[in-house]
C-alpha cells in the first residue's frame, strides 16, 4: 500500500512541477521543452515501479522497470546479436534496396504519362494493403535468414517511396521549368539541378515513413520463421516461456533503434533540404 501511495504522491508532485514549469518563462525555452517531457517520462517509470511493487503484480504480467533494466544489462551480448541480425542485416539492407528501387522507379515512371496513369492507382492500392502479410511467402522463398526479412521490407517501403517521389517530381513549378528550358537545359540537367532538389522534401517524407515500416517488417517477418537470433524471434520465444522482462528489454532496444534510425534520416534531411522553410526556423 505504501508503494502505491508513494507513487501517487510522486505523480501529483511531478505533475504540479510540470504545470509550474510549463507556464513559467523556462517552459517556453529549449530547456523546458526537454525537461517537461523528461520529467513526465521519468514519473511514468516511477509510478510503474511503485504499482508493480505495491500491488505485487506478477512478473509474468508486468515486470517492473528495474527488472527490465536488469534484463538489459545482464543480456547485452544477446541483445546486441539480435540488433545486428534484425536491424543492421535485415532492416537496413531492405530499407536501402527498397528505397533505391522506389526512387529509381519513380524517375523512370515520371518520363511516361502512360506508365503513371496505369501504375499509380495500383501503387496507391498496394500501399494501403497490409503488406507485412507477405512475410510467410518471403520466408518460404528466401529462407529463414535475414534475406527474407530484407525482401519483405523491400516490398513494404517501395510503394511509399515511389508515391512520395512521384509527388515530389511534380513539385518544381511551371515557371522554374520554363526557366530551365530557356537556358536550353537538357532533360537530365533539369532533373538533377531543379526537379530532384525540389523533390527532396517529399522524398524524405517517404523515407521517414519507410524507416518505421522497415523495423516493423523486420520484426514481424521473424514471427514467421527465423534463425535462433533476432529481435522478433527473441520476442516470440520469450513470450512463449513468459520471460517478459526480456521481451520488454527487446522492445526498449527496438524503440531506441527506431528513434535512432528515424533521427538519422531526419539529420540527413536537414543537411539536404536546408533551403526548405520547414528547416529554416
Amino acid at each position, binding site marked *: 500500500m505504501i508503494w502505491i501511495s508513494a507513487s501517487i504522491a510522486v505523480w501529483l508532485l511531478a*505533475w504540479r512541477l*510540470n504545470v509550474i*514549469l*510549463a*507556464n513559467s518563462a523556462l*517552459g517556453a525555452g529549449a530547456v*523546458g*521543452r526537454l525537461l*517537461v*517531457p523528461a*520529467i*513526465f*517520462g521519468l514519473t511514468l517509470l516511477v509510478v510503474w515501479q511503485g504499482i508493480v511493487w505495491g500491488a505485487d503484480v*506478477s512478473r*509474468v*504480467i*508486468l515486470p517492473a522497470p528495474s527488472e527490465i533494466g536488469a534484463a538489459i544489462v545482464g543480456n547485452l551480448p544477446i541483445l546486441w546479436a539480435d540488433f545486428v541480425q534484425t536491424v543492421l542485416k535485415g532492416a537496413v539492407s531492405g530499407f536501402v534496396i527498397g528505397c533505391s528501387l522506389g526512387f529509381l522507379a519513380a524517375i523512370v515512371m515520371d518520363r511516361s504519362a*502512360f*506508365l*503513371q*496513369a*496505369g*501504375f499509380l*492507382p*495500383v501503387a496507391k*492500392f*498496394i500501399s*494501403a*494493403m*497490409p503488406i*507485412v*502479410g*507477405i512475410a*510467410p*511467402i518471403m520466408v*518460404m*522463398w528466401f529462407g529463414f535468414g535475414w534475406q527474407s526479412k530484407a525482401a519483405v521490407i523491400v516490398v513494404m517501403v517501395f510503394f511509399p517511396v515511389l508515391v512520395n517521389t512521384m509527388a515530389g517530381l511534380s513539385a518544381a513549378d511551371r515557371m522554374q521549368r520554363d526557366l530551365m528550358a530557356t537556358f536550353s537545359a537538357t532533360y537530365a540537367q533539369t532533373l538533377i539541378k531543379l526537379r530532384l532538389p525540389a523533390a527532396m522534401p517529399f522524398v524524405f517524407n517517404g523515407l521517414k515513413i519507410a524507416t*518505421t515500416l522497415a523495423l*516493423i517488417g523486420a*520484426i*514481424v517477418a521473424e*514471427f*514467421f*520463421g527465423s534463425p535462433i537470433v533476432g*529481435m522478433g524471434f527473441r*520476442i*516470440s520465444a520469450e*513470450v512463449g516461456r*513468459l520471460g*517478459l522482462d526480456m*521481451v*520488454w528489454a*527487446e*522492445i526498449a532496444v*527496438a*524503440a531506441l533503434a*527506431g*528513434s535512432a*534510425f*528515424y533521427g538519422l534520416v531526419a539529420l540527413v534531411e536537414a543537411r539536404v533540404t536546408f533551403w526548405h522553410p520547414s528547416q529554416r526556423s
Partner: protein
Amino acid sequence: MSRFVPLAVVLLAITVLWYGAAVWLNSAWVYDQAARDGGQVGFADMVAATMGQPRPVLPAPHQVAVEFSRMVFETRVTSPRSLVFHAWVTLSGTLMGFVLGTVMGVILAVGIVYNRAMDMSVMPWAIASQMVPIVALAPMLAVVLAQLGAGPAVSKAFVASYLTFFPVVVGMVAGLRSPDPMQLDLLRTYGATGPAAFWKLRLPSSVKFLFTSAKVAIAAALVGTIVAELNQPTGLGARLLSGSYNGQTAMIWATLIVAALMAGALVVLIEVAERLTLRRMGIQP
C-alpha cells in the same frame, strides 16, 4: 476512358509477369520430379505442370482465384475453413480497436490542446512513439491479456486501439489548433465562451484532420489485428501462419487478397464518410 486503358495494360502486364514468374519458380519442382522418375520433360509439359501444383512456390493467378472462390464463396461462412469467417473475426477486432482508439485519441487531443502542461509532457512522447515498431508489442499483449482473463477479441482490439490512438492524437491536435488566431479573436470579440469556441470553431475545423488520421489509423489497426492474431486460433493472421507452416501457398495468397480487399474497403468507407460529412458541413472537399 483514356484513364482506364493504361490501368488495364498495367494490370495485364502484372498478370503476364505473374504467370511467367510462376513457371520460372515452379519449374524446379517439375524437373526434380522428372529426374526422380528417370524421365525427361519437354518445355510444354513443364509449363503445363507448373500451373497446377498442389504446393507451388508461386501459385499461378488462376490457382489463387480458385482457392479464393473456394474459401470465400463455396464454404459455409460459419465453417472455420471459410475465409469469410476469419475475415469477420479480424474485421470485428479491427473495428472495435479503431473505435476505442479514436475515442481515446480525441479525448487526449482535447486535453493536450487546452492544457499546456499536458501538451509539453505528452506530445513529444506521442510523436516519438510513431517512430517505434509498436506492433512488436502485439504477441506480448495477447499473452498478458489472456492471463488477465481477457478473451482473444479483447487483446486484439487492445493492440488495434493502441495503433489507432497515436495517429489520431497527432492529427486531432493539429486539427484543433488549425483555426487561425484571427478566427479565435473574432469569437472572443463576440463574447463567446470557451466551450462555444470549441464546439463552433475548433471541433468543426478539426474534422478534415480527423478523417485524414482515421485513414492512416484504420490501416495500422488492421495490420495490428493481423499480427496479434498470429498467436490465436482464428482470424486472417492465424490463417497466414497456419498456411506458412503447412506450405499452402495458394491459401496464403487468397488470405492476403482478402486482407487487401478489406483494407481497401475500410479506407474507401472512411473516404465516403468524409465526403458525406464535409458536404453536410458545407465544406468543399
